[in-house]
């Protein structure tokens, strides 16, 4: 019986793995193919002549394909924009969300329900419908094509989820933790910083990762609210890649760029995975 279940588990496991990883593998394989191969009618799965040329082109290392001289510079700029915009948005969103969630979890105040409902409503609001108004507003007040012009909407759209996640975490932390800290001589702020935040760390990291991913992958706002590589992020920049043949998208270069932007995400997940381990709070109280 247990053998059968085991076999079933493994089959399911493999199926899901293939389902999830096949596109990733396909992108990786594509990134090693030259333009001749990607342009062919029915390309094989693995590259017949693996080449690093796509990576050279987008990163500007070594000899660049003629006509692709600008790609690397633009891509590096976009990478820098993506990185800092996502990081700043994440940082600010987490700070605001932590404070807001703590207030929601711990304090009784008028309009608490309203705040939570509003937050949820914002989370459900379709981003696309805001692009037009935001475009006009940003141009008027001079935020168009700037980092803050992207950071602000990214924060707005990720805060609700972050607040909800974090307030759930804060509610789980026993009140006594904080009271014990206060009796031990901590101010409210010290109790919050030294006891509550470390205990909510899994929640904080979850919120941080969600925010970072949103900002990192976001496309609609990124392409609508920017006009130059001064603030354009990678997802938007990819659509500006032009290959040697104007009638064929530069699949190889795009794939290589995709791989490059996926790497930080994988690194972050692996880094934070240990932090997200549940059960960090076990042993706090009786049990």
């Amino acid at each position: 019986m247990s053998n059968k279940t085991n076999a079933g588990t493994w089959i399911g496991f493999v199926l899901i793995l293939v389902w999830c990883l096949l596109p990733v593998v396909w992108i990786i394989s594509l990134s090693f193919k030259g333009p001749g191969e990607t342009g062919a009618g029915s390309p094989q799965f693995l590259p017949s002549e693996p080449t690093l040329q796509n990576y050279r082109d987008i990163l500007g290392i070594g000899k660049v394909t003629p006509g692709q001289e600008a790609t690397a510079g633009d891509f590096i700029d976009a990478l820098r924009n993506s990185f800092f915009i996502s990081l700043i948005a994440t940082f600010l969103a987490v700070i605001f969300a932590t404070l807001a969630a703590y207030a929601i979890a711990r304090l009784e105040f008028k309009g608490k329900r309203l705040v939570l409902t509003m937050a949820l409503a914002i989370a459900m609001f379709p981003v696309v419908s805001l692009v037009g108004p935001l475009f006009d507003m940003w141009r008027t007040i001079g935020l168009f094509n700037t980092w803050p012009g992207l950071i602000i909407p990214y924060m707005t759209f990720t805060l609700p989820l972050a607040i909800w996640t974090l307030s759930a975490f804060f509610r789980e932390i026993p009140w006594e933790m904080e009271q014990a800290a206060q009796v031990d001589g901590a101010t409210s702020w010290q109790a919050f910083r030294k006891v509550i935040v470390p205990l909510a760390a899994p929640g904080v990291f979850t919120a941080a990762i969600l925010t970072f991913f949103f900002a990192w992958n976001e496309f609609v706002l990124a392409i609508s609210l920017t006009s130059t590589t001064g603030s354009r992020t990678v997802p938007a920049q990819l659509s500006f890649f032009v290959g040697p043949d104007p009638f064929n998208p530069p699949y190889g270069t795009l794939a290589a760029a995709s791989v490059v932007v996926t790497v930080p995400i994988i690194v972050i997940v692996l880094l934070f995975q240990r932090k997200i381990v549940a059960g960090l709070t076990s042993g706090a109280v009786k049990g």
Partner: protein
Amino acid sequence: MAAIEMKNIVKQYGDGFPAVNDVSIDVEDGEFLILVGPSGCGKSTLLRMIVGLEDITEGDMLIGGKKVNDLAPRDRNLSMVFQNYALYPHLTVYENIAFPLRLAGKSDSEVDEKVREASKTLELDEHLERKPGNLSGGQRQRVAMGRAIVRDAEAFLFDEPLSNLDAKLRGQMRTEISRLQKRLGITTVYVTHDQTEAMTLGDRVAVLKRGVLQQHATPRELYENPANLFVAGFIGSPPMNFVPAKVDGNRVELPFGTVTIPEERAANAQGKDLLIAGIRPQHFEDASVVDSDKVTDEATFKATVDVVEWLGNEAYAYIPFEAPDEVREQLTQLEKDLDGESLRTQLVVSLDGASRIKEGDEATIWVDARKIHLFDPATGDNLTLDRDNAGIIPGGNAMAKAEEVGKEQDDVKPGSDAATT
């Protein structure tokens, strides 16, 4: 170290729930005070008001002669052990104990010295680098105590610290706490609903009911001279027997016979109709194992024993009896106040282990008539009270007051117990 004075403390919650009502208790410097009572009696609330986690609605709280009503917990310099320990799970045992010192900005060497000292006292040396999650219940308890003793606090506060431990460990930790307190000589306030802890640990015990102080006295005084029915029923295990009684001179008529009590004890009970007599199970004995000179007809009665529980050193015999309705009502209410359920009116009799009485036997039971208490069924007051040996009994009728408060409490939260457990 400091004395703690509570003067007419009142706690009313935002919704009007009167949790603590006009309680005045003095805790002397170095004294071990127990706050005891059934769940929802406001004992934890009172403790949290001392430490500053609850606001004081009315009255004065003085620690070391200084009024602390408006001070934040961190400015009161008290240390507290919580019921669920409230250890910081992300810190090691060492850092947990060091936490108050680090907040106080002590130097690393001083922190180390004090933490080592505390861990040695509590035998935690080998666990210092572990996280609380990997410790057993008793070890966590000790870490919580380490965190309390590591700094020079004015007083220790314990909120039912042993209620999460199993019976054996509880006994050991009880002794440990007692030893530690004696050695450090620090003022201690200890909340419990366990009367073994109350009796064994406390220099003095304050009994609360529905946020009203009933009696504040040494364990011996509480046991021998309870102020009213409630205290009498709460202190002692198994609890005191309450039976209907009629007094005529110094003769007391009980459901199973008539006994003679000393004149001075009967003096206050004259002229009252129906009373409640309180007799501790330990004040009964199998007549056949009592010295023959004590056994007189006046002090013995015959009764059919329903059930016998033999424990080796002693045995409990249960003898059912019929109670008149006016007393029964009072007894049922009392049982409810004591967190119990009254199933039947019965007498619990503690017999010597040598007694041969068996279930269904008609036994001759001797009762120590000198120790019988008489209570007024209307007010609950103890009519045989020896005021000189009964500690502090608040003026007025504490039981009736608690009853009133109870009604108010039920109005705010019907059928609720403001229990923290």
